């Protein structure tokens, strides 16, 4: 009884692995449905096109995942995306020359919002939902007051091209590549570096992390800053994709990013899940959306279906994933 069987790699957590597997299984199913339901639906460049045009969600969801992992929740991402869009277009003023500066400012704005979120959560010790909601609302109020409802400036033509262009003659959209890059960065940081492991512990049990000398506050704040950054990147890409800044385009992304993470097996209680899972979650949402549009499903039915699917998928996941004594 006392011997130590060394089955499984030391990191293996059956829980996580199973839900991860399940997330991708779902994604594959959706993909197949999409494929068979439409003429030459399996054409790779179409798939890549879909991924490219939904990169914004993918990127934002990764930041959301990091925050969720440390027991947080970022309800401000949508507003942050819009803020980034407004800043971008105002500073770009339609000139390609301004692009670098504009990008820098937009991302900085996003990071700043994240920083404020993090500091409020850590120092004022407010519940994340509330803190980020409040900050988000304030940000929204801010850009409305400043723009009086009308985004200033314009997107530089060169930058607009960027959204549709891509590597290998445009088949691999830049947006998708950025998404992959962000995901890779997050995954490697979390699972292949020591700080990453510490970060996981902060989410799994802050008190323990604190006692183990891990900078609870530093890590928590870092997560929110990361989320602010990804939100800004997402917002910037969305703007490039659309061709003009919008004060409302980001709104739907807040809950969508949470949904994606949760479908991907990220626990709202922190410490459990991974950007890799979220990646699957995004695929599921995106494919589903595409299927519904291509089937010409009326908007109300689409709305209802998406809601139902979200619930059903959670239920199935739960059936599928055993829960141990540790579950709480």
């Amino acid at each position, binding site marked *: 009884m006392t011997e*130590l*069987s060394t089955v499984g*790699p*030391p990191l293996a957590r059956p829980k996580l692995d199973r839900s991860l597997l399940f997330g991708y299984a779902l994604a594959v199913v959706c993909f197949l449905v999409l494929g068979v339901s439409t003429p030459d639906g399996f054409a790779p460049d179409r798939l890549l096109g879909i991924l490219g045009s939904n990169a914004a969600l993918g990127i934002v969801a990764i930041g959301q995942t990091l925050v969720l992992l440390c027991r947080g929740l970022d309800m401000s991402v949508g507003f942050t995306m819009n803020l980034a869009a407004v800043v971008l277009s105002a500073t770009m003023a339609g000139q390609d020359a301004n692009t670098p500066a504009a990008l820098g400012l937009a991302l900085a704005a996003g990071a700043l919002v994240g920083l404020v979120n993090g500091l409020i959560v850590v120092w004022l010790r407010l519940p994340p939902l509330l803190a980020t909601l409040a900050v988000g609302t304030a940000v929204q109020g801010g850009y409305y007051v400043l723009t009086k409802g009308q985004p200033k400036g314009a997107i530089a033509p060169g930058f607009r091209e960027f959204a549709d262009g891509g590597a290998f003659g445009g088949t691999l959209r830049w947006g998708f590549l950025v998404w992959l890059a962000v995901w890779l960065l997050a995954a490697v940081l979390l699972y292949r570096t020591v700080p990453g492991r510490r970060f996981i512990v902060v989410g*799994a049990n802050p008190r*323990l992390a604190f*006692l183990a000398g891990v900078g609870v506050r530093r890590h928590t704040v870092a997560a929110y800053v990361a989320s602010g950054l990804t939100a800004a990147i997402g917002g910037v890409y969305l703007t490039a994709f659309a061709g003009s800044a919008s004060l409302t385009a980001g709104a739907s992304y807040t809950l969508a990013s949470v949904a994606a993470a949760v479908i991907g097996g990220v626990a709202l209680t922190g410490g459990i899940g991974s950007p890799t899972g979220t990646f699957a979650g995004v695929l599921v949402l995106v494919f589903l959306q595409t299927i519904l549009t291509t089937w010409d499903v009326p908007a109300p039915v689409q709305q209802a279906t998406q809601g139902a699917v979200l619930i059903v998928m959670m239920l199935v996941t739960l059936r599928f994933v*055993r829960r141990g004594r*540790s579950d709480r």
Partner: protein
Amino acid sequence: MADRTAVPGPCRLVCESISKTFGGTVAVRDVSLSLAAGEVLALVGENGAGKSTLMNVIAGAVRPDSGQVLVDGTRLSHGPQAARGAGIAMVHQELSLFGNLTVAENVLLGAEPVTGPLIGERALRETAAKILDDLGIHLDPDAGVARLSPGQRQLVEIAKAVATQPKVLILDEPTSSLESTQVDVLHALVVRLARRGTGIVFVSHRMNELFRFCTKVAVLRGGELAEEGDLADYSHDRLISAMVGRDVSDLYPARTDAAGRTDPVLALREVSGHGLHDITLDVVPGRVTGIAGLEGHGQSAIAEVLAGVRAPTSGQVLVAGAPTRLNSPAKAIAAGVGYVPSDRRTAGLALALSVAENMALVGGAGIRGRFWFRPRRQAAAVREVAARLALRSSSTGQAVGELSGGNQQKVLFGRWLLRADLRVLVLDDPTRGVDVGAREEIFGLLRELTARGVAVVLVSTDIQELLGMADDIVVIYEGRITGTVPGGDATEERVLALAMGQEVPA
């Protein structure tokens, strides 16, 4: 020993060939037990032997794979409510009180006196107060549970169980955080209930209590019922070897008297704050400094100050003689001070994470890598320590939350064995809920450490343990040091007297 004479009545509780496996681990295999009215059954076994699981099955909290439970001859349907209805009450190993409610509200939770749909608050208070008095528990029914000491909470928990006037009362390690006076309260209570014909199952790792409380004994080993019989037929040692499956000759290894006191690695000078009053204390390499005291008299605070969890409001902390601000655990760890907190589930472990992750948490670059994380290296290091601790887990990848209480404690302890530069190890009640075998191993390891020149600070409410392990016993009463007794020639009476403030400091 009144309870010994209580005449066994009809069968209160019968378990028929109960089995339960969790994924890989067999927790309980084909166990049949019976408990007569008025009997007090000692259920013993190593950590992970399956005691809690078996009890949880009886209390309906865990659904068995096979087997059934009968109360007074009627088969029990699954579910806590059903069990409760059938007159089974259980005090769980993990406390289940609600900190947002008062003592009274907790005691009568789910059984509040109501007129129509509405709860009668006055009736509630009075009933609760009465129950507490009956049990000889002196607590304000209106006190918020959140503010009670662990010991007091445990008493409330017991009161809550007894309030339902159970036919069968299950106490899963109820004394783990009780101090001796409170244990007396519990004993009196158990005797009374047994007289009334309640069948009682008593799970504990504290031998002397087992012999004091119980009439019968059942021994679980690796999930199977190894032996059962009258406790009267068992000697201390026989019981232990029955549990562990081998002889535990002497629980406490001999003191390797660290000759020639060296200078303290860690010291407190007139430290005050967090309920402490000018504490002065030397922690010396190669010695076990025991800190005795009744629950909530500040000994845990001392541990936290030493570990940098709390910064003293006045006074000095000296590391290797040099005044240092140990105002964060990070700094303490950097100074080579390790800390094992008492509330292992909430502060000591990340239950969802693997054994490896939990153990290697503070492991330095050598174990998990400097920046790039080295899983293999970590696994190797962890596996070695796990083996040394005889840790019972399916793999180093198993989630710690799935381990038994005692094995969780081992993980917590093993964490610091992975630290090469460990100079001081501060342990707050490290053997709470840990079985004898494991305790022997842990004490052995503590000695190894002291032999290696590590200084050990051992906070404990179990005076026996301090008498057995400590080189010096520092006794605390109301946040003050009332005396320091050399461990060798200390007696329980002496330490208790100091701990109860009955003896003025010399």
